[in-house]
């Protein structure tokens, strides 16, 4: 009798089936104890920018994660365009009155990218002037938006995030939603040129609707030294309750990288090239914003 041929029943899953279960409560508490011990004795690493990966992984990202998964139901596209282990400059549109879009992109790149990339944000000096906010921003990996810091991070192979619209973008009225503002002075392009790292255009849809800004109390803003003071349908009408963001549906898309290495570092001194590249990045983001808006069926859907 010829030997029976073995026909594999499940050819495409070799690893045994194991249901993914959340870690047991006692493991979680033990992990928490270990974390507490590290924090009490200071035995963790921080870098020269003030980035504290231990705190980011165990406190800051877990706080942001429910917003990312449940509240905004963020969907990401084009993560394959983000390199796994080399430096790149992610350039995104800015909106939403408070920089929640920067935080959600940080979670997206850490949780959804296969290499769990750290997103090193570049923030305005105002951020670092505000007590607590500034310190926390640094601990999450942010640093001041200046060419020196951007170039240092890019040279070290970090994934750097920049919002060239700045306050013009984040503090724009609701009627101007999804219209890109002026892109600064192109400082981000010269940083990418000087370090030869690619620029990854990133479009974020959904952040515009979290705090629809229908007015700007300029006098109050001047009083507090802020660039704008938002008036939304719920803020300051409902007080602290008005700070709860509206649960809009978010889409984040990373576009194809724009190569800069071929121009050489000297190209950063050519203003015409810098302007052209800035425009190219801006148009790519604007275009992909329109595409994402078509894809999204409804604002809160």
């Amino acid at each position: 009798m010829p030997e029976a041929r073995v026909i594999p029943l499940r050819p495409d899953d070799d690893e045994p089936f194991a249901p993914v279960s959340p870690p047991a409560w006692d493991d979680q508490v033990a992990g928490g104890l270990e974390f507490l011990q590290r924090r009490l004795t200071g035995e963790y690493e921080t870098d020269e920018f003030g980035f504290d990966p231990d705190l980011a992984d165990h406190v800051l990202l877990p706080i942001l994660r429910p917003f990312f998964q449940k509240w905004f139901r963020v969907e990401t596209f084009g993560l394959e365009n983000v390199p796994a282990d080399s430096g790149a400059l992610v350039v995104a549109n800015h909106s939403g009155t408070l920089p929640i879009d920067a935080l959600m992109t940080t979670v997206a790149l850490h949780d959804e990218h296969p290499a769990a990339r750290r997103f090193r944000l570049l923030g305005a000096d105002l951020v670092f002037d505000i007590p607590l906010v500034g310190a926390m921003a640094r601990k999450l990996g942010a640093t001041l938006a200046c060419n020196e810091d951007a170039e240092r991070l890019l040279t070290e192979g970090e994934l750097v995030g920049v919002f060239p619209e700045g306050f013009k973008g984040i503090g724009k009225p609701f009627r101007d939603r999804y219209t890109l503002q002026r892109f600064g002075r192109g400082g981000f392009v010269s940083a990418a040129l000087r370090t030869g790292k690619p620029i990854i255009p990133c479009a974020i849809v959904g952040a515009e609707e979290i705090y629809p800004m229908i007015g700007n109390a300029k006098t109050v803003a001047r009083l507090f030294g802020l660039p704008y003071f938002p008036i939304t349908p719920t803020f300051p009408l409902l007080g602290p309750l008005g700070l709860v963001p509206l649960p809009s549906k978010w889409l984040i898309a990373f576009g194809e990288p724009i190569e800069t290495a071929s121009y050489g570092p000297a190209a950063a001194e050519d203003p015409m090239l810098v302007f052209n590249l800035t425009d190219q990045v801006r148009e790519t983001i604007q275009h992909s914003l329109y595409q994402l808006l078509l894809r999204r069926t409804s604002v809160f859907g």
Partner: protein
Amino acid sequence: MPPAVVLVTGVSRWLGGALAAELAADPAIERVIGVDTVPPSPAMLRRLGRTEFVRADIRNPLIGKVIAAASVDTVVHMNISSTPAGSGGRVPMKELNVIGTMQLLAACQRAPSVRRFVLKSTSAVYGASSRDPAVFTESMQARQVPWGGFAKDSVDIEGYVRSFARRRPDVDVAVLRFTNFIGPRIDSLLTGFLRMPLVPTALGYDARVQLLHEDDALAVLTRATTGSFAGTVNVGGEGTLLLSQAIRRLGRVEVPLPTPALGSVGRLSRRFGFVDYSPEQMRFLNFGRVVDTARLRTRFGYTPRYTTEAALADYARTVAPVIDPLTVRSVTGGLSSLLTRVGDTASAVERRLRPTPPPPGLRAVRDA
């Protein structure tokens, strides 16, 4: 070519005395002259060896006579006071720092024998503000020029030294911008600050701190005196710590206070001569400062033996912790072993009550 006659100012302090002792131990150097306004302590005097001590005020033209008479060829200027407490108030401190430097430079300019001038400066010249880049290189300037205290003095002093270098192009000038010193023996602003059991800090701020071990500071000063480096160089250990982290590693208790309250604590402690909380020092404690040390390692040719972390650990040997890390470890260890026992019991009970479900059966083949 090693120097023949070295003049060191500020020799009665720990670092100045240690440098003079180090130079005196080098047989290639003919004479070492130490200058200070106060005589060194007996212990320091023993260490100084064959160093000749001249009690002179560098604010006094007498210093010119000393330089000319001994035909000094290398001057190491370290007599820069960082705290008003040490020099009897802010006005004498500024006079000693700025006028003293001017007098010393005037004397050096007149002396044809001087070939080399080493300035012990500080990275405080970069200021400290929220607009700072994270890491300063030597070519960068302060975003917000310091307007008072030690930092302002240091900016002024560097300015005078630069104009001296312009007027005497034959003199090699080395400007060493040190980060904060730390170590078991040195007495610096930060060591006094971190020695307090309760360390008041500014609420909502956390400075990035870069440290330099006293042994490395001494080695860099010796190398700058006997070597040929000319120019400005940042001197600091590798790596950084956050201020809160450093306080925790030393087992101190951090007391974050709102900035206005911290100001009054500062005035109070200054009055009693404890720790200097000058406005300029407070800005540093808010934002911190990190310098790039690539030039130190490549052009100057010295790599600090201690990283920031190692320097702090070496300092920690000399201060008894308030919160002992061993206690923390035994408490958390005890809690976690208790937890394991509770967890084991709970899972045993769970197994008894609810047997594990059988593994799932065969699933449909996808492309059947």
